[in-house]
C-alpha cells in the first residue's frame, strides 16, 4: 500500500515533515488539581492530576520524595471497533509505565516528600500517536496543578514508510508495520527515548525528525 504518493504527499495530504493540527486546553476538570485536553489531529486525550496529596497506601510512602502514579486508559469508543478491555491489558500497562517514568524524571519529587502525585490519562479518540498526546497532556496538567518540574516535556512520534521518514503518524500509518519511535524531550536537559528501532543506520534520521517535531510542539 502506498503511504507516500510520488508527489510526496501522505494519505491525509500532509508532507512527510508536517505535523497534524495541535490543540490544547487546560483547566477542564474542575475537581482536579490540574487538568488538560490535548488534541493531535483526531487523537484526543484528557489528563487530570491530583496531588500532591496524602499517600493512600502507607507502605509505598517514601520519606525523601513524592510517589508518582500514572494510569492510562482508553475509552471504549475511542478506536474504530469498540474495545472490550480498555485498561489492564498489556499495552495500557506499558504506556502507563512509560508516562510515569518520563514524568517522574522531570518532577522535582524531592520537594514533596511523603506525598503522592496521581496522573490519570484518558484517551477519548485514538488516531495514532496516543502515547505522545498523553505525555503532552500530562505535562500541561502538571503545570496547571502548579507542581514544580525541571522543564516542560514534549513528545512526538516518527516512523519510516515507503523509504521516507514520516513525522507524527496517524493510525493507518502506525499500523502499517514499519518501525516507529516516540521521542520525548525536555528542553535543554536530556531526552528519553522509547520505541522499536529496526535499523541503526536510520537512527540519526529519526532523531532529527523527532526533534524537528518537538520544536513545533
Amino acid at each position, binding site marked *: 500500500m502506498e503511504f507516500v504518493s510520488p508527489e510526496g504527499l501522505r494519505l491525509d495530504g500532509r508532507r512527510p515533515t508536517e505535523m497534524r493540527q495541535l490543540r490544547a486546553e487546560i483547566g477542564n476538570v474542575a*475537581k482536579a488539581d490540574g487538568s488538560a485536553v490535548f488534541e493531535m489531529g483526531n487523537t484526543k486525550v484528557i489528563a487530570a492530576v491530583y496531588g500532591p496529596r496524602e499517600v*493512600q497506601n502507607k507502605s509505598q510512602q517514601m520519606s525523601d520524595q513524592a510517589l508518582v502514579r500514572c494510569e492510562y486508559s482508553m475509552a471504549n*469508543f475511542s*478506536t474504530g471497533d469498540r474495545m472490550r478491555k480498555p485498561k489492564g491489558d498489556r499495552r495500557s500497562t506499558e504506556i502507563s509505565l512509560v508516562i510515569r517514568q518520563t514524568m517522574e524524571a522531570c518532577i522535582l519529587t524531592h520537594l514533596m516528600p511523603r506525598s503522592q502525585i496521581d496522573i490519570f*490519562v484518558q484517551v477519548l479518540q485514538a488516531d495514532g500517536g496516543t502515547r505522545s498526546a498523553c505525555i503532552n497532556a500530562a505535562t500541561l496538567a502538571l503545570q496547571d496543578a502548579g507542581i514544580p518540574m525541571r522543564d516542560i516535556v514534549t513528545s512526538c512520534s516518527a516512523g519510516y514508510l515507503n523509504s521516507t521518514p514520516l513525522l507524527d503518524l496517524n493510525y493507518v500509518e502506525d499500523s502499517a508495520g514499519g518501525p516507529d519511535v516516540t521521542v520525548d524531550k525536555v528542553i535543554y536537559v536530556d531526552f528519553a527515548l522509547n520505541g522499536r528501532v529496526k535499523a541503526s543506520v536510520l537512527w540519526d534520521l529519526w532523531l532529527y525528525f523527532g526533534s524537528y517535531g518537538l520544536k513545533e510542539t
Partner: protein
Amino acid sequence: MGLPNASEDLSSEMEVDAFRRLFPLRYFERHLAESIRPDARPLSRARDTTISMGAVASADGSALAKIGSTTMLAAIKMEVMTPSLESPDEGCVSIDFHMPPICSPLVRPGRPAEAAPVVAKQLSDTISSSGMINLKELSLVGGKAAWMVYLDIYCLDADGALFDAALLSAVAAFSNLQIPTVSLDDGKIVMLPEEQKEENSEKEPVNKEKRKLTLGGIPFSLTCILHKNYILADPTSEEESIMETLVTVVLDSSNQLVSLYKPGGAVLAYTSAVQDCIALTRQRVKELHQILEEAISGMEID
C-alpha cells in the same frame, strides 16, 4: 466539639473557608435559612446546563452534557449481531457507565467508584422502561441480523447530580445517532463506509432510508436533596456528601412519571415533599427539552 455556642463564637472569628470545612452542616443551614445556597442559587434552581452534540467523531452518535461542573461524555457504537431466539426481530441496547479516576479525587484507580454501578443500573432501567427506543427498529433481517447498540458514558468531572447529567447525555447521544449503512453480501451483513456511494451497483444498502431512530417518550430527570423541610434541586457533590437524602424523579416529555428513586436517607419524605419534587422536575423538564431542541437544531444547520 462542645456546645452549640462554641461554634457560634468561633464563627465570628474564623475564616469562611475554615468554617465551611469544620462545620459544613451549619454553614449550609445558615445559607438555607436565607433561602439561598453557597453558589448563590435559589433552592429550586438547577445549574447552567449545556449539551454539545457530535463530541466524538469516531462514534456513530455522541454528546457531551454539562450540568454546572458535572461533565458526561456519551458515545454510541453499533455492531451487527444475531438476535436471540426469544425476540428474533428485536435489537439490543447495552448501557455502560464509567467513572474513570480523572473525575473525582475520591475515585481510586483499580477500585471502581461506588456510585458507578448504581448509576449504570438506574440508567439501564430508566431508558428501557421509558420506551424511548423501539427495539424492533433495530432489526435488520428478521431472525438473522439485528443491531447491538453499545452506549458508553464516561464521567469526566463528578460534581453532583451524576444521574441527571448521564441521562441527559444518553438522550442527546441517541438524538445524534446516525445508523451506519449496511448491505447484504452473500447472505452476510457488511458495513458500508460513507465514501462508497458511487460503486454501489452490487452492494445496495439495506437501510438507506432508515438512518435515524424515532425516539418515543424522551425521559428527563431531576435529583433533589431533602433536608429538614428544605428541598434543594440539583445538588453539587459537596451538598450531596453533607445532606444525604436524595430523591430522583424521571418524567418523560408528556409529563408522565417514568421513575421515582429514593434510596433511604435520614429524612423520611411525606407525600407533600414528593409532590414538590415532582413539581420541580416538571419545570426542569421544560428547560431541558428546550436545551435539547436547540442543540439538535444547532447540529442540523451544520
